């Protein structure tokens, strides 16, 4: 249970949150036309006769959109409805060329499911998902480009969306944030949505109400189209506090639609329920009901990847990683993919089972690679070093070719040049040496040059041992095998 409470003048208030997430389905073509869905095209470039609602045009469902929504439903353990139907939601606005949106009100494709979340401020919990239905996106209206005209861009009109409706199960902004991140992670694993909130391919309508702990549900408001996890959390926080203030000062919460202003970090009224649209839903007579057969469902099921929760369990179990590392590596599908490719390469390079190299690979990825990517401002999909190169590097450490410090140096060069580690080691002679003859010779020189310190050491100043190691390594340009250097130094000094 979340302990998040709003401290009001009359006591503590609990927040009840439900999210309706609109996720753009990753497909080449729109839901009911063959037009492209490519982001960033010139206005009205991705518009077919169907999208422009020319007379006599008819929608034809894009099977890939249905497939992706079904796979998403399966990924959240939801009931998939073999029989579903598209409805028209009628309302007049310029961004909706048909005058209606094709959606699913009465018979959605996906029924009840749930996801597990681990909010930072609380314990893990299950958030229920009521339904996922498939619908068309609307076009975009631009009002500020001309004093008297509005511009209409229909590029998004007809793009396939999944509306993922949660139950009002969340109790804090952190839980809502965790839900959104987990949902995004699942969508990316499934490949049904790229989860890119900045480009608008995922956005949330945020339903918030407040109540005294244990009371009935309060009146809720809906804040539309919030487009980042941070903004969703901020909108909840603002809205919950606003509602408490209104109630405590004797007012009533009006059920209404609100907008979030990210600049002022506040929500504002958009329209109230009284002037809400009468959408006039009815089954779309241009479309037959959607009926899914066993073969289609089996194919959807078979095509699902290992999902984050299962992957995490495997990392913690058979691979023996820490819960922290497993969490970090599975949170994002790209990271998990990268890690698994790295693991395969490292195991191959060393001729060992993956479980034996997993810890080293995980440590290197989380500290070295993530550190470097952070510094470079790049994400893992654009890493300058490939998993194969990372695996080779780990192999060179494991077989004694590179010491830890040499490996760090080689990695820096890899980041700059993109070269393979073996090539760097060969060309730059960065191989560590375990040759006792060569090491002994260097040690002899170091001891001779520091006779006074040798005397001090032998007189009991044990701490000077590190000094001799440093001098020896420095004289060997870092290439001495630290273990051998230690061993030979000890022998020479303690003689």
């Amino acid at each position: 249970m979340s302990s998040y409470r709003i401290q009001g003048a009359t006591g503590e208030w609990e927040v009840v949150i439900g999210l309706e997430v609109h996720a753009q389905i990753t497909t080449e073509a729109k839901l009911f036309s063959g037009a492209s869905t490519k982001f960033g095209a010139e206005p009205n470039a991705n518009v077919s006769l169907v999208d422009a609602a020319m007379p006599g045009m008819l929608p034809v469902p894009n099977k890939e959109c249905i497939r992706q929504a079904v796979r998403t439903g399966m990924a959240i353990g939801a009931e998939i409805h073999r029989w579903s139907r598209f409805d028209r939601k009628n309302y007049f606005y310029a961004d909706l060329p048909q005058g209606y949106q094709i959606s699913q009100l009465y018979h959605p494709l996906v029924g009840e499911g749930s996801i597990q979340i681990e909010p930072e401020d609380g314990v893990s919990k299950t958030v229920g998902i009521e339904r996922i239905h498939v619908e068309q996106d609307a076009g975009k209206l631009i009002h500020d480009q001309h004093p008297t005209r509005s511009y209409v861009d229909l590029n998004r009109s007809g793009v396939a969306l999944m509306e993922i409706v949660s139950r009002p199960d969340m109790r804090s902004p952190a839980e809502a944030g965790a839900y959104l991140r987990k949902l995004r992670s699942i969508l990316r694993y499934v490949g049904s949505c790229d989860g890119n909130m900045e480009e608008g391919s995922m956005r949330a309508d945020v339903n918030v109400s407040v109540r005294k702990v244990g009371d009935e549900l309060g009146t809720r408001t809906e804040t539309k189209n919030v487009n980042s996890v941070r903004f969703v959390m901020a909108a909840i926080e603002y809205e919950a506090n606003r509602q408490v203030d209104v109630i405590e000062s004797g007012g009533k919460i009006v059920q209404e639609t609100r907008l979030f202003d990210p600049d002022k970090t506040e929500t504002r009224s958009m329209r109230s329920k009284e002037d809400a649209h009468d959408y006039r839903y009815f089954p779309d007579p241009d479309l037959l009901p959607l009926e899914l057969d066993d073969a289609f469902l089996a194919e959807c099921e078979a095509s699902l990847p290992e999902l984050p929760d299962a992957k995490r369990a495997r990392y913690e179990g058979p691979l023996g990683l820490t819960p922290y590392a497993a969490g970090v590596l599975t949170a994002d599908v790209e990271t998990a993919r990268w890690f698994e490719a790295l693991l395969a390469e490292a195991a191959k390079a060393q001729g060992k089972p993956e479980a034996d190299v997993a810890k080293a690979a995980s440590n290197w990825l989380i500290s070295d690679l993530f550190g470097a990517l952070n510094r470079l401002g790049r994400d893992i999909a654009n890493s300058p070093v490939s998993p194969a190169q990372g695996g080779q590097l780990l192999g060179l450490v494991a077989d004694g070719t590179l010491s830890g410090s040499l490996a760090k140096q080689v990695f820096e060069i890899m980041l700059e040049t993109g070269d393979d580690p073996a090539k760097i080691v060969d060309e730059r002679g960065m191989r560590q040496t375990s040759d006792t003859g060569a090491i002994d010779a260097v040690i002899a020189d170091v001891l001779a040059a520091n006779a006074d310190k040798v005397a001090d050491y032998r007189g009991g100043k044990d701490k000077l041992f590190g000094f001799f190691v440093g001098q020896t390594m420095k004289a060997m340009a870092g290439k001495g095998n630290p273990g051998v250097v230690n061993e030979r130094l000890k022998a020479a000094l303690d003689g």
Partner: protein
Amino acid sequence: MTSLTDLTIAGIRDGFRKGDFSAREVADAFNGAVAGGKALNAFLIETPEHAVAAADEADRGRASGELRALSGVPLGIKDLFCTAGYQTTAASHILEGFVPTYESTITAKLFGAGAGMLGKLNLDQFAMGSSNETSAFGNVISPWRRNDGGTAPLAPGGSSGGSSAAIAARMVPGATGTDTGGSIRQPAAFTGISGIKPTYGRCSRWGVVAFASSLDQAGPMARDVRDCAILLENMAGFDPKDSTSLDLAVPQWEAGLSSDLKGKRIGIPKEYRVDGMPAEIEALWSQGIAWAKDAGAEIVEVSLPHTQYALPTYYIIAPAEASSNLARYDGVRYGQRVLPDHANLQDMYAATRAAGFGPEVKRRILIGTYVLSAGFYDAYYTKAQKVRALIARDFERAFEQCDVLLTPTAPSAAFGLGEKSADPLSMYLNDVFTVPASLAGLPAMSVPAGLDAQGLPLGLQIIGKPLDEQGVLNAGLAIEERAGFTARAGKWW
């Protein structure tokens, strides 16, 4: 030799193939008839060049041994079908001047089969009407006149009134129609021609301006049953661009024609004997039954108990769908726009629609919006859908006892223009016999079967099982042969 414009489609096709005449001669003859028939107002635009180009291509094709199914045949096209490069208005001001860049699937198929287009035919606005009085471009006048010597202009039926008038006046040998609640069959009956509405899903709706999507179905109108079969073969077929299109092979209906009804059972639905039906209609129906028996059929009485609810159901569902389908006509992307001074978006929509839609269209949009509104949805739309299912089940049960149904097409002969336009409810009653088959998606046709006391044509309707167009056409042919309907409108225009 008879005039070329008196030939049926089969006659034109076969004569052209034999070399009796050129396709160009046919096109010229019909173009001449179209030009001479302006008084009927059957055409919204004339496209003689299209007909001539198709004819010339047919003549070249014949010379090189390439003959297509409709080579040499010119047709009229109801102006509800989008035709690439030719204005398509649905007889409305709101689409006035709209020239599609695309060709409807049906017209593409017909033109692909070699047919030419004589022009775009007038209709009730957005196919809403039963008399062709709701066109924004004036009424179509039937070529028929009462035999009392009067010159009162008569309704050609609707909504495919331009099609029916043009065929009856021998301005076109055949035409496309669309039927939502009877818009092929009723005008066919009023003008003494044949027309068939196929099973819902047989003909693609792609590129046909939508009225009520779950009911709209294109079909042919022509002088006789054989011509309907020929045209339907060249209109029907699966279209991946229409989700409700049936993925089935197109039967060879013409080759399958037979007027022998031995072994067939013909059902007579008792509920179609409506109160106040004119004796003439009653008599025609009895005559039809006698003809069917003569053709070898067995007659069985059947019951369609929900018939009385068909019209109210239709007048909920059709306007509901229409109110949604017509929402796209907003003056933004095509057609006419009315932009009053200082108008905002809502003002522009309102002004455009006020000017662009006629009274009947507005009436149906209002009815449709009302029955779909949140407070009334269950009371009207949901209930209508339930009744629709009951009506369809009535037919299923009836077809356990018989192969086709025989009924009158309309409760009366053609009425005078203006006689019913002030009374929409009485106008809606015109569709009382055609609407039930539409709600059930069944194939149904009207064939001319006789004349009333005023010398005006009357039609009989045959309703078939789903996909049994052949059974419908064959029963139609049996009636046609026995009726020997040769009456035609005297050329007064």
